[in-house]
């Protein structure tokens, strides 16, 4: 039995070791090196890259990323919970709705983000329709601001919120809901006081799945934010491309990973048992 277990574990363990642990170790090593004059890496070993992180500029970038990711997560929750509840109670059409939620994944995220640019720009669909209908005279500035970035993130990550919540709601014993109604609770009170607390593990899982990728997003702020509302992911990307400062980029990546893991640990320590 023991040998079989090892055998079954081996492929995944080897995969993680080769493609997760090893690259992370390399990033760790890079973060302690010094940038060469024209990019590239070199000695001496130094903590300088981490010291640079204390610069208020980078902290404000981090705070801004938290704000954008937090807003996107809350909106995803506000949209995802009712959506999951609706699907879980949709009876035989459940599978149709579920496949509709997953449908966008058939197209690349990049292409879909470009599509949003065409919808939101001054001469885009939304402004054209509103102008033709006579509702607005000047086009609304829909593209290239924080709102557009949050919209793009919510659009992209909504399924990651809706699906885990759906999974917990589906396992919810319908008798509990019936009991709540029998005891005189109105539907809204049942949702808020019975269903929502029971869906908590799904909500936590969904929030984690949405918040973490949003925190490190760089494509959406670049395309929908027009490079005007940079997030921490853009800082990292820039270090590896334009600035050619791989050591500093590695240090920022690791700092971001550390923050995410600390948050996960703090958040999941309370919820962990329920999730498992």
């Amino acid at each position, binding site marked *: 039995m023991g040998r079989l277990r090892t055998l079954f574990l081996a492929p995944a363990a080897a995969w993680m070791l080769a493609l997760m642990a090893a690259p992370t170790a390399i990033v760790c090593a890079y973060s302690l090196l010094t940038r060469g004059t024209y990019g590239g890496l070199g000695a001496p070993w130094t903590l300088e890259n981490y010291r640079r992180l204390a610069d208020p500029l980078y902290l404000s970038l981090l705070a801004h990323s938290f704000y954008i990711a937090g807003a996107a997560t809350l909106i995803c929750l506000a949209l995802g919970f009712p959506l999951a509840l609706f699907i879980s109670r949709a009876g035989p059409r459940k599978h149709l709705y579920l496949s509709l939620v997953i449908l966008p994944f058939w197209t690349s995220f990049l292409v879909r983000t470009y599509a949003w640019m065409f919808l939101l720009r001054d001469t885009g669909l939304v402004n054209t329709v509103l102008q033709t209908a006579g509702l607005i005279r000047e086009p609304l500035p829909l593209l290239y601001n924080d709102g557009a970035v949050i919209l793009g993130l919510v659009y992209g990550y909504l399924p990651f919120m809706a699906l885990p919540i759906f999974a917990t709601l589906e396992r919810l014993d319908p008798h509990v809901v019936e009991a709540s109604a029998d005891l005189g609770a109105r539907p809204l009170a049942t949702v808020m006081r019975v269903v929502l607390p029971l869906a908590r593990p799904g909500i936590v899982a969904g929030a984690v799945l949405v918040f973490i990728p949003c925190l490190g997003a760089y494509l959406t702020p670049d395309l929908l934010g027009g*490079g005007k509302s940079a997030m921490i992911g853009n800082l990292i990307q820039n270090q590896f491309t334009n600035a050619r400062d791989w050591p500093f980029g590695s240090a920022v990546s690791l700092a971001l990973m550390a923050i995410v893991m600390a948050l996960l640990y703090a958040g999941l320590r309370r919820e962990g048992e329920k999730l498992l």
Partner: protein
Amino acid sequence: MNRRAFLLGSSGLAACRRDRRPRLNVLNWSDYVADETIPDFVTEFGVRVRYATYESAEEMLAKVLSGNSGWDVVFPPNYFIQPMRENELLAPLDHALLPNLDHLEGEFRHPPWDPELSWSAPYMWGATGIAFNRSLQPAPDTWASLWAPRTAGRITMLDDPAEVIGASLKKLGLSVNATDARELDLARREALRQKPLVRAYLNAEVRDQLVAGDVLAAQLWATTAQQAIAGADDLAFVFPREGFPRYCDNAVILRESDRRDLAHSFLNYLLRPEVAAAVVTATQTATANAAAQHALDAEVRDNPALYPPPEILEKAEWFLPLPAGAQRLRDRIWTEIKAA
């Protein structure tokens, strides 16, 4: 040897025998050759070419920095020649194999970044200016006009630190290659002052929005602007009066290449006037090849956005490689602009 190994080996050998022609590996900017440039070379020289493209010079450098990237010929900008030499990435050019270097225009036979062309063959060059909608009157003709409140929210700047900081420096009458902390701080303030007026920091993506009329003026590379202007009569391009940055992409042979003779043949082929002229017509870019220039249609040759007259060109400034300290300072300024 058992039978299975023999069969595997022999099919492998057969695959080799099918195509023993030498293969040249070329990594170039996207949209930087004509459709027939590479196929014609393949046919004429009886070789194979692996051709791939990149979108930024940094991307290319990151690939070849290791010294065993598998590429033979790449096209770095002029300000990368010295860094690549210092990193021992370049192979010396053998002028005996490059008779077509004689076709180069005078200033490109002894360019400041490689005066004897010992390492690089100038290919095409470009410059940065302002693409604008003709409805904008008076028409912008200075970098300062991109700070004017009248176009608030209707202008874009390039998503490139050297360009945005460079335009701010030029507006102040300073060099695009400034390394002095005080000068860079002045440029930082200019750029931060401009940001509320800027719709977005965009590169080639701005073309559509210029054509659609969403954007009235954009800091843009002459070549990219040319591609937008070709699709819209109401667009024009101007080189700002304060001066503007200029860059030149060069064909180089990597030191790691073990097909240097073939690589020289390829460089010499690109320097042929008719080949270079076809590339210019296809890409709407300015060539360093004087003989190619004569082979062009008058319409392309006399386009002042691609080939500005001498009195404008003398205000241009070549981008230079910058010391590490200045690069770091500029990167922090860039982050501050983007985060503001």
